[in-house]
């Protein structure tokens, strides 16, 4: 279902994530394959569809009792399956990074913003102090934080949600990674702030020519933001489609996701209920 990209940054084949529970193994991700180049790919699905788990599996962050298996998982030609922890750490943060959902939980509450950003730089080759400081300040400027000097000294609880998420983006991009996984980066934010954070993210990805995997439950948001959309349902990719052709989506689940949003100027009838069919599990 996926055409192989010759210049793919990330190549995933038959990725599955399994959790051993008391009631037997549960597959959160069930054999998905896709490639990501220096482009923006959206992964959409309802909660529990395995989209977040996919992002974490790529970074090798699925903890026991979860198990990850794939016939191919390469980043820039490096096989990331069974990569020793040391080499995995060199990729993590430095070359592939991730922005997480809620800055209230994803920033360490007892560490200053400055230390948390500096840490991202410091674990990859200990640059000198003034360089760390300069790069941190530049990065905060890039995410359009005013008064970055003061923010460096602030603790996460002293920041608003929108600022927290900009700090998160700054912390994860300061090492200039080539691929960014954004896991619901705006879902925890106020609607008014969402668009600004998205614009900053979009701008950075475009300017730096990074690859982006944008994970969201919001199909419309993803389609305006990404080049390509993967629709996930119960651990499988049920449809892959170019964002501007979304209206041509064939799979009933994708159509359902599109139709269950109200349209301004549309009719006032009941919104259709999302159809879920057992058969799609094995599509």
């Amino acid at each position: 279902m996926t055409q192989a990209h010759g210049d793919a940054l990330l190549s995933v084949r038959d990725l599955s994530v399994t959790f051993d529970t008391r009631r037997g193994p549960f597959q959160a991700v069930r054999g998905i394959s896709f490639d990501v180049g220096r482009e923006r790919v959206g992964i959409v699905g309802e909660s529990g569809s395995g989209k977040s788990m996919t992002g974490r599996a790529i970074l090798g962050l699925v903890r026991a009792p979860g198990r990850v298996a794939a016939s191919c998982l390469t980043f820039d030609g490096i096989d990331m399956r069974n990569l020793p922890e040391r080499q995995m750490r060199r990729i993590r943060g430095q070359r592939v990074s991730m922005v997480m959902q809620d800055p209230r939980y994803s920033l360490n509450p007892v560490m200053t913003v400055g230390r948390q950003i500096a840490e991202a730089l410091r674990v990859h080759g200990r640059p000198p102090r003034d360089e760390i400081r300069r790069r941190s300040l530049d990065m905060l400027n890039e995410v359009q934080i005013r008064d970055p000097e003061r923010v460096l000294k602030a603790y996460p609880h002293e920041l608003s949600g929108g600022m927290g998420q900009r700090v998160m983006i700054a912390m994860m991009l300061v090492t200039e990674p080539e691929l960014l996984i954004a896991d619901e980066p705006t879902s925890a934010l106020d609607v008014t702030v969402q668009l600004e954070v998205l614009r900053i993210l979009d701008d950075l990805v475009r300017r730096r020519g990074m690859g982006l995997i944008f994970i969201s439950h919001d199909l419309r948001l993803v389609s305006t933001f990404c080049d390509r959309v993967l629709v996930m349902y119960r651990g499988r990719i049920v449809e892959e489609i170019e964002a501007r052709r979304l209206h041509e989506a064939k799979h009933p689940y994708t159509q359902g996701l599109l139709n269950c949003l109200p349209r301004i100027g549309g009719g006032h009838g009941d919104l259709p209920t999302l159809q879920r069919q057992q058969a799609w599990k094995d599509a």
Partner: protein
Amino acid sequence: MTSTNIDDPRGLGRARIPPSRGRSSRGLARAARRVASFVFSLAVTLFGLLLVTFLIARVVPLDPVLAVVGDRATQAQYDAARVELGLDRPIPEQFVRYVGDVLTGDLGTANLTGQPVLKDIGRTFPNTLELATFATILGIVLGIPGGVVGAVYQGRWPDQVIRVVGLLGYSMPVFWLGLVALLIFYGTLGWAPGPGRLDVTQQFTYEFDVTRYTGSVILDSALSGAWDVFRNAVAHLILPAAVLGYFSMAYISRMTRSFMLEQLGQEYITAARVKGVPEWRVIWVHALGNAMVPLITVIVLSYASLLEGSVLTETVFAWPGLGLYVTQALFAADFNAVLGGTLVIGAMFIVLNLLSDILYTIVDPRAR
């Protein structure tokens, strides 16, 4: 980026954080308020403590007069002693008098020793403080790493071993553990000195040659350069401190484990791993840094409970501490000593509470 940020017309990116807190007048006012509230709570708590202990002392069916004059005294002697002790007055008047004495620093005379209670406390309390402090240090040094390792290896053998060791500490009565420790390390192996604070010869040197700077045998002997006494004092401390420290360790490691498990499941831990932070740093800096916040209360409370509750250990090891003193005073119906001891323990609790508040603001920026 230009100075007028067109992408951010509403200034949402502006820092909404309070100005840096130096020694501003606001900071001073806050400090003053804190001190005032501390003094107030100290006064109220001590008064309440005094009242309750005093009333209990007066209603228990023990006769302090009898304890003084003995059961062969004549009725006349008995009555005279009763008047002398002030026990013929109504209870409210007795209480007012006692509070007045306490306020002038007079805790009365202990019948048990014939000394002023304050002096007795000055002699016994440092011993308890030494014991509880060393036990707590032992508990922290072993308990925190134990709890961290247990959480990291949750469910695997290091966790099981640490849990079983901790559970043993929880379930064994302290006097039994103390006796067994004495039997093995003093009786059989001869590695540790016997019960008591010092050997008899060292006790002699201590009484006559060591200046009392602090009341602590270890500190005073070191300050006076009496190294024989110092070594002996430390040697005597090891066994009871280890027994008490075992309990402290069991409690601290158990709490550390559960706080660490909670923190290790948080998103900021995943974020640190995403950044490529080495696992040891994720555990010991990120997770433990946050687990320390609730741990401080646990450690301080366990310290406080060792200060007041080491009576059994002190009895088994003939340790001349406050717990032993108060217990003996209670058996001898020596209420001045009981009240004085209770007061000191209560004050200690309040001071430790303050200490935990201060440590809190150091560890947790949200509490500042």
